[in-house]
């Protein structure tokens, strides 16, 4: 438990560090939401200064940071100037959409990658392994951005799938949502699959070649039981770490897919915030994406801790 506590503290400190750094960067940034206003000749410099004072932007940095932390604790995450409302309520729906998309994609990708990787590891040197290696390498070279656009194109042309968005009006909400999920999830899964299968194959191959596997085979343990009961746990450690690492790549890919496919997640909101120079919103999205990674890595740590007694000894 001490170990988990330490990881948790580490994650929290990381988030605090990110927030301080972001604040300093935002402070040094040339221009803000109001300087975009200032490009309009009808808005005077005094009016802008008055607005800045009204929203408390003229206060010194530490004071603003303290106010921001207080507002995070209230669940507001600061005040969005572009939307003229606290940031918190804007975020939660978006967070749900992004988590739904990335969660489904992660689940499906691992569900496909584990059997495929294990199968490849047992079939090393056969034509099946070679073919799958070539196909996966090719898949790895196709950018998610292109996949997303091509899938959208297919959706528009065939009409089999909705062309973007998350919901359409009508009954059967769950079925409708699932229907909208298909294409974006497919893009993300195809994007992740090659990397995952490669790693599963590599670590399973190592487990299969290890001496204990040879002795287990000599004792006549059935193949299925051997693969899933004995070899998979032995190969699991690097895969669990990979789960933590791959989250960052997944979220990045998801940002692009969300923008292309009109999925109402954090990605499009982030882009809008940047274009409007709405720093409170930018900061909130930055913090959220960092917390996703921190939580994901924490989950991976806890899983490692459960799976591997060697970590508990340290």
């Amino acid at each position, binding site marked *: 438990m001490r170990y988990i506590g330490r990881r948790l503290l580490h994650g929290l400190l990381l988030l605090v560090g*990110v927030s301080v750094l972001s604040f300093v960067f935002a402070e040094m940034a040339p*221009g803000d939401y109001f300087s975009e206003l200032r490009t309009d000749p009808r808005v005077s410099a005094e009016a802008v200064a008055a607005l800045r004072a009204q929203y408390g932007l003229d206060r010194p940095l530490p004071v603003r940071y303290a106010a921001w932390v207080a507002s995070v604790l209230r669940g507001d995450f600061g005040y969005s100037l572009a939307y003229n409302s606290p940031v918190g309520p804007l975020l939660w729906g978006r967070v749900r959409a992004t988590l739904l998309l990335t969660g489904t994609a992660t689940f499906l990708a691992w569900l496909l990658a584990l059997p495929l990787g294990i199968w490849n590891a047992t079939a090393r040197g056969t034509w099946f392994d070679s073919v799958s290696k070539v196909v996966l390498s090719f898949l790895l070279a196709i950018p998610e*951005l292109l996949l997303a*656009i091509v899938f959208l194109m297919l959706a528009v042309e065939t009409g089999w799938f909705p062309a973007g968005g998350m919901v359409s009006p009508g009954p059967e909400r769950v079925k409708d949502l699932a229907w909208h999920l298909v294409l974006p999830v497919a893009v993300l899964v195809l994007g992740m699959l090659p990397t995952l299968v490669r790693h599963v194959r590599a670590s399973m191959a190592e487990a299969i070649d290890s001496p204990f596997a040879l002795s287990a085979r000599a004792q006549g343990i059935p193949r299925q039981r051997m693969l899933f009961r004995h070899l998979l746990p032995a190969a699991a450690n690097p895969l669990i770490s990979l789960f933590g690492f791959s989250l960052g790549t997944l979220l990045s890919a998801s940002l692009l897919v969300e923008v292309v496919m009109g999925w109402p997640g954090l990605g499009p909101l982030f882009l809008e915030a940047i274009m409007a120079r709405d720093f409170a919103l*930018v900061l909130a999205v*930055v913090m959220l994406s960092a917390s996703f990674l921190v939580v994901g890595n924490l989950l991976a740590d806890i899983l490692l801790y459960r799976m591997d007694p060697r970590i508990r000894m340290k």
Partner: protein
Amino acid sequence: MTRRTKIAAALVFLGILHGLAIFAGFLAPYPYAEQHREFPYAPPTGIHWSGLQFLVHGRLFGVREPGVVFLLGSDAYGRDVFSRLLYGGRVSLLTGLLAAFLSLSLGLALGTAAGFYGGWLDRLLMRAGELVMALPWLYLLLAVRAFLPLHITTVQAFFLLIVIIGGVGWVRPARMIRGVVLSARERGFVLAARGFGASDAYLIRRHILPLTLGVVLTQATVLIPQYILAEVALSFLGLGVGEPVPSWGNMLAEAQQYHALVAHGWMLAPGLAIIPVLLGYLLLADTLMAPASRAR
């Protein structure tokens, strides 16, 4: 195929692809911004040998006015997609190369310093690295971009992209180089040289840096394609190189519009052009990284 021929093949392949972009001024039949307003969204033209002229106006090929040649069709302003693809490759590939160079230089300097001197410098750099790695990389790129001016010229945008992409990417190479330096520092010949009174600068230059070469090369093959994709993503989102200068990213942004999706499939060309480039780097990276395991 042996490792050596594989590497050579990948290098030649990549060389050709980069050459196509470098010599865009010669290979492309039109300048990137030349508009033919009378032919918006023209589909790819078939080749008719009769009208084709070679080596005209300092370019490889062209057709006699008022004819036009659009090998990959034209865009909304009647600009030749093929020409823009070549010129756009210049921007995208060059961004990848220069940003990777920047990242690796930073990584080499910081990683060597952290590994060689250790102590508080090492701890500081590794903590800073953790902070950078705490964000998903595209979110990080966008966040850094968010705090920089939006309205800038295309040339400024190009250099800004290189600095942003290269600047935030130093952590991974720095960590790997630090690892190499940590073990190199304790090698017998380094300790011996130190015993003979060699200065730190000499040790690093003569004994440590040559050992990091392998890591630097493999990291380059991993980083360059990743950075090309980063440029494409940022320009696609409207935060990178803007009109009229083409990059594969901002060209793809046009392909995403509804009518382009339905009827103008050739607008996807820049997206497809990325695939062979990534494949080339992938082959190179795979071959460099898996030397011994192939022998089994």
